[in-house]
């Protein structure tokens, strides 16, 4: 590691230039809560570390005129928690982001890093997927947008092109009567890797679900968007039959691994349980309860 270089670009173009030039030998540093741990463990040995925290666009939180949000890819969880509006509009997503690591880690860790780390068990990703968040990417060939669920390619891998940096997230404006929630199953009360994670985002009108999105984590090589579960909820009054159908859809979507954190059968079972519970919380929030 003795020949590692560290740069702190002030502009996105500078960062993209340096990243592209390094041809795969560079790693992006946002909070560093994954990267530094991996480097210490010897799992990665980058020749160049590009710190993106000094780039204004990557660290801003902006509520857009239409009621949506733009969040910089390097914004720390603690800063989102302090934002006067974000948690009111997206309580489930904020909870998910704030579940990354400990209080100390929250001062550094970002949703952008959580997504780019490519862990199927990343806590913020199912909630982002449920929220319908879109990632903004910038690379040598310019800027493009990609739905969050399309970013992960497998454990530890993403669909970002060489030299591409995640700039931030665009969250859509929320219709009235919307609510979201994220729940995860862990053995302890905090600080564990999710055995299953489930994000639900929905809109209710006169008690009927008019829109819904469901994200599931830790049950497949990538975080999943489960459209069949959303479909089961849409048009229903979130009655037992609809919830059962959505839970069954979640279970059907699971193809988890069997490891010491959980068996296939257990993860699959719990995915359905969390869907029902998260949908309940999201519905309460949608009703303003």
């Amino acid at each position, binding site marked *: 590691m003795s020949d590692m270089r560290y740069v702190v670009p002030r502009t996105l173009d500078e960062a993209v230039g340096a990243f592209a030039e390094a041809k795969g030998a560079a790693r992006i540093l946002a909070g560093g809560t994954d990267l530094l741990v991996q480097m210490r463990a010897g799992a990665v040995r980058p020749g160049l570390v590009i710190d993106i925290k000094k780039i204004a666009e990557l660290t801003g939180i902006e509520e857009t005129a239409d009621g949506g949000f733009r969040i910089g890819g390097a914004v720390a969880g603690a800063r989102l928690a302090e934002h006067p509006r974000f948690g009111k509009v997206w309580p489930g997503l904020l909870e998910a982001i704030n579940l990354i690591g400990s209080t100390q880690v929250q001062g550094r860790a970002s949703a952008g890093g959580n997504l780019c780390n490519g862990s199927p068990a990343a806590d913020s990703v199912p909630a982002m997927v449920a929220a319908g968040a879109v990632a903004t990417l910038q690379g040598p060939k310019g800027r493009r947008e990609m739905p969050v669920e399309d970013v992960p390619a497998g454990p530890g891998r993403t669909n970002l092109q060489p030299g591409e940096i995640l700039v931030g997230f665009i969250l859509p404006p929320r219709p009235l009567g919307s609510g979201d929630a994220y729940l995860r*199953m862990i*053995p*302890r*009360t*905090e*600080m*564990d*890797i999710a*055995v299953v994670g489930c994000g639900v985002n929905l809109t209710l009108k006169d008690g009927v679900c008019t829109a819904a999105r469901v994200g599931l984590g830790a049950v497949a090589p990538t975080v999943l968007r489960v459209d069949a579960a959303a479909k089961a909820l849409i048009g229903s009054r979130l009655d037992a039959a609809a919830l059962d159908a959505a839970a069954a859809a979640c279970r059907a979507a699971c193809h988890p691994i069997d490891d*010491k954190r*959980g*068996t296939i059968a*257990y993860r699959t*079972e*719990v995915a359905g*349980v969390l869907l029902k519970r998260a949908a309940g919380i999201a519905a309460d929030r949608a009703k303003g309860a």
Partner: protein
Amino acid sequence: MNRGHNRAAVLEAHAEHLPLLRGLGRYVGDLTLPGMLHVAFVRSPHAHAKIRAIDVAAARGCPGVVDVLGGAGLAERLAPIRARLDPDGDYDYRETPWPAMAHERVRYVGEIVAAVIAADRYKAEDAAAAVAVDYEPLAAASDVAAALRDGAPEVHAPGGNVLFRVRKQSGDAGACFADAPLRLSARFKHPRVAGMSMEGCGVLARYDAVADELVFWSSTQIPHLLRDGLSRCLGMPAERIRVIAPEVGGAFGIKMQLFPEEVILAYAARQLGRPVKWIQDRSEHLIASFHARDVTVEAEIAADGEGRLLGLRAKAWCDVGAYSAFPLTCALEPHTIATALPGPYRWDCFDYEGYAVATNKYPGGAYRGVGFPIGPLVTETLIDRVARKLDCDPIEIRRRNLLRPDDMPFSSASGAVYDSGDYPALLQAAVDRADYATWREEQKQAAQAGRRLGIGVACFVEASGMNRRVYRGRGMMEIPAFESALIRVSPGGDIFAAVSTPSQGQGQRTTFRRLLSERLGVAPDAIAIGLGDTAVAPYGAGTFGSRSVVSGGGALLAAAGKLCDRLCVLAAARWAVPVASVAFADGGVQEIGQGGRRLSLAELAGLAYSARTDLPDGVEPGLEVRVAHDPKAAPFSAAAHLVLVEVDPRTGQVAIRRYVVAEDCGPIVNPAAVDGQVRGGIAQGIGCALYEDIVYDAEGQHLSATLQDYLVPGAGEVPEIDIVHQVTPSPFTEGGHKGVGESGTIGAPAAIVSAVMDALRADPPRIILPLSPQRVHDVMEGRADERA
């Protein structure tokens, strides 16, 4: 917290902890010496392999490297770590000499094959990566089942993998079980766990060529035993080795074994003539520190139709890893389970077989509770089953069976002597404090709302301050089993006391100071305490097995008695009166009778040192006494735990809602320390019950090398714990004290299992800890765990 104590008392109780909390403690990691070198170890990635060759040439050439140790040469100069048992004992035992550095064969992942000594740890680690080892992998015995199978890989060929076997019987189990109206059985698996001390292990070794002395700072619990162990491995006289345990940040039994690293550091310091240091990192701590428990038990209980307990029989297979550790040997776990199983009950018959089975894993050692947590886990679970079968309340069935005060002293079914205690009153105290009836009511109401609450109970005893008789009975000849204390009074009357049971953060300085201040009638501040240095403290086994107050404190009280006797002789001589007409009281000697004269401790000390004093015959000048102490018997403390849990009916997650403890450790010297021991012990018991598990795969690969994999309970997992004290002094110890250092860890797993099974109303054939959400879910679904 600290109910019943005022702020001043709390501050006094924690006087020695406040500087530690402020970062003023000096641990091995804080120590620096001029010219100090650092050590990194090359460890085996294989569970079992032959070593074809070790090439250290490239490592030697790395920047900053001073020396690389490895290969056969070292084996000739260092005797292996040996752990002997009395050859005449009533058991079978195979010794497994453990080379500090492997050179022919590695027997577990993490075994040391080379050590790099360099200018700093970074350079040492980089060079360690350059050591090339050519392994020929062998099939591994990764658990007890694999090790006992026909044709199993032999960890120490030849002779099979059973290293130790013991049987304990009383009464006629065959007849008792044949006639018993009720017989119930179950299989238990307690995971492999380890104490996660905040401070890992650490060593700083310095050879003093002038004095021909090795000064050895180690985070050890056993300074004298460590010295003796090093002496044997190095072939260096023990009195040329000075072991110093500075502040130690928790130990829990792990640090009461001789580590191969310690032997290598001692060797390197002497060889190089420069100080060498090694601070264990957390991954090393998880992979290559003494693990514990890893026990499978098959047990059966016999009872009559009224719920009277008749018989208990059990077989325990303890997965002890690849070697016996010094000084306890692999007999530790199977021996102790025998003592623990009968619990606070009378059994007409008892039949136990315990095995220590060698596997290709890190060696097993002591961890808070040793064997004792297995006792109530098995016995209390089976008693709950009898109660459920007979539709009897679990408190009631225990009331019917607990030993009573008039049974004391009681010889248990496995041959231990319970000295004192009122077990039924203890259970009642817990029931009253919890308001058990309201818990049951709450449980009923919750059930109507679809929630599952469960109430668990565990009654148990804890062997403490184990004396020479206990260790003789176990054949553990490496443990001297006594403790010593010396008290020195300066010419000006200042008191210094040294005790052979050092502190790992339990607050021994405060406790010993209090004990002595109350005995002598002097202010605690007037007493200086010396611990943890073989050049300062007299000989003793060290701190483990809940022995600090009983054995170390007993030695201190005995020494205080001897000091008082000496002071009386001095005073009587001064006044020219018979010794019988003076008595020690309140910090001085008093002439008995109206208007009697008095000499203070300081005045007497002045006399003892002064050349002008005409000392009586047989009284040596100066004022220092020393006592080696072996308690008359190992006292048994006791406790009852009541716990209320909630089980998530869909995910199987267990949350502890309330926790009540009634305990009896005899007279309490330092209430804050006792409560702290109980709470900390319960936290670790919760870990064993619900979270902690060192997992090895079928190839013997260690899968729990980080704290993301090995889950210890955090603040969120440990409930507020309500503690009730009951005081029944032991007739066999100096101050009537009984040890309480392991109590919480012993009771918590049994109590939590009892509560979860009460919530589920389930008696699965296998109880497998930790009760992870998935395992609890499996029990709810009636699925047996395939990995049992």
